[in-house]
């Protein structure tokens, strides 16, 4: 067991874990950050996306020991039921989520996109988001939601 400390959504977290424990499992099972989901554990779906030191990673491909000393941000640190983040609001308004399983990963990936480029084109949105799979929405309304925030698409209805 190794003791690992990192910051989780601005608060310090400390856990004792085996080196093999995936960050995804630590977040979900030890730190009650259940918004990161296991969609594949093969690095292929993006449902487990979190931000580590501001950049998006797949928490199913990172061992918790590797997060030592970092700042981890999860969906729990993005918006709250009383104060949704604009990305969350846009997704709801455009009906960009159905089952919601992919949604936290989508929100975090989009967050990093808008930090990198506040006015992404549709192509850029699709390229940037390409690692996040959704089986419900056909992506149509997710793209519309993000375009509305980019100021390149139609405004939310």
């Amino acid at each position, binding site marked *: 067991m190794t003791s690992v400390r990192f910051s989780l959504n601005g608060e310090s977290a400390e856990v004792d874990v085996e080196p093999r424990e995936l960050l995804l499992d630590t977040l979900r099972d030890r730190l009650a950050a259940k918004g990161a989901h296991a969609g594949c554990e093969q690095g292929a779906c993006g449902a487990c996306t979190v931000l580590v030191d501001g950049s998006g990673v797949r928490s199913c491909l990172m061992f918790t020991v590797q997060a*030592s000393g970092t700042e981890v941000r999860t969906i729990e640190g993005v918006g709250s039921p009383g104060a949704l983040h604009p990305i969350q609001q846009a997704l709801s308004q455009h009906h960009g989520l159905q089952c919601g399983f992919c949604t936290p990963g989508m929100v975090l*990936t989009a967050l990093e996109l808008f930090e990198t480029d506040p006015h992404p084109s549709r192509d850029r949105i699709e390229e940037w988001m390409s690692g*996040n799979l959704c089986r419900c929405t056909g992506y149509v309304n997710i793209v519309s939601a993000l375009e509305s925030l980019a100021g390149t698409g139609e405004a939310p209805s």
Partner: protein
Amino acid sequence: MKPPRFDYVAVRSVAEATEALAQTEDARILAGGQSLVPLMNLRLARPRLLVDVNGVRDLVGFGGRNGTLRFGAMCRHRFLETDPLVHQKAPIFAETAALIGHVHIRNRGTLGGSIAHADPVAELPALLVALDGRVIASGTGRERAIPAAELFAGPFTTSLDPTELLTAVEVPAHTDGDGGAFSEFVRRHGDFATAGVAVIVHRDASGTCESLRIAGCGLGPTPVDLSAAGEFLLGESELGDGAARELGKRVAAASDPPGDVHGSKDYRRDLAAVLAADAVRRAWQKAGAARRDPGG
């Protein structure tokens, strides 16, 4: 789908890394983890010790000296894709790195990891072959250079010793008259390529083709050197549409790709023809443009 047990050490220097590798059987380097961890989750890889080199400063960075460009093994794909200096000095690396996976894969995945992993469909190993580059490998107390031509031994197999750390990648510096292009076919944006072709052309001041190197991914058990297919273009100063297509045909004929769920042998050959023609057109044009516009 959870990884088996292993020991873990985060090292700070190349020496610490090589020592750790030497001391434990079945020790493995952990770089970006974007290939190794999925395999561990599937229990297809089960190292006893993971040597995490993410904190080794000497393995990052990029610079040029004596006509050679040197990349630290831990250069992330995303760094190659976005760094202005890389764009200027090694534009083909920026172009190629942008083709790898999705942004979050590129945030973590590394140049050294991709080459050491030696996936036959990966882009960077093919690029290394096309550029006729080499890698620097460190064992305890020794260092050697392995040319690309001697590095890739089979699918997911290199001539690196298990106790060696790949520390750097070296390629000839980009010069006036060089033009490179990487064309690939992916089913969806960010997928591993079904097939890909890198073409590196050098044209002299008059526009004549002096050298032309070609390598493919997804076209054989390793990245394959297909340069021989382009010999007929040496000494030419124009590249007509017919010549580009002819190159495509020759590349397709010269490659012996595997068949799998992503495409049959024949399908990959079909792609090789299309991709090689596209890559040579783009590389040829860039080589000409580079002449007129040094720096570009």
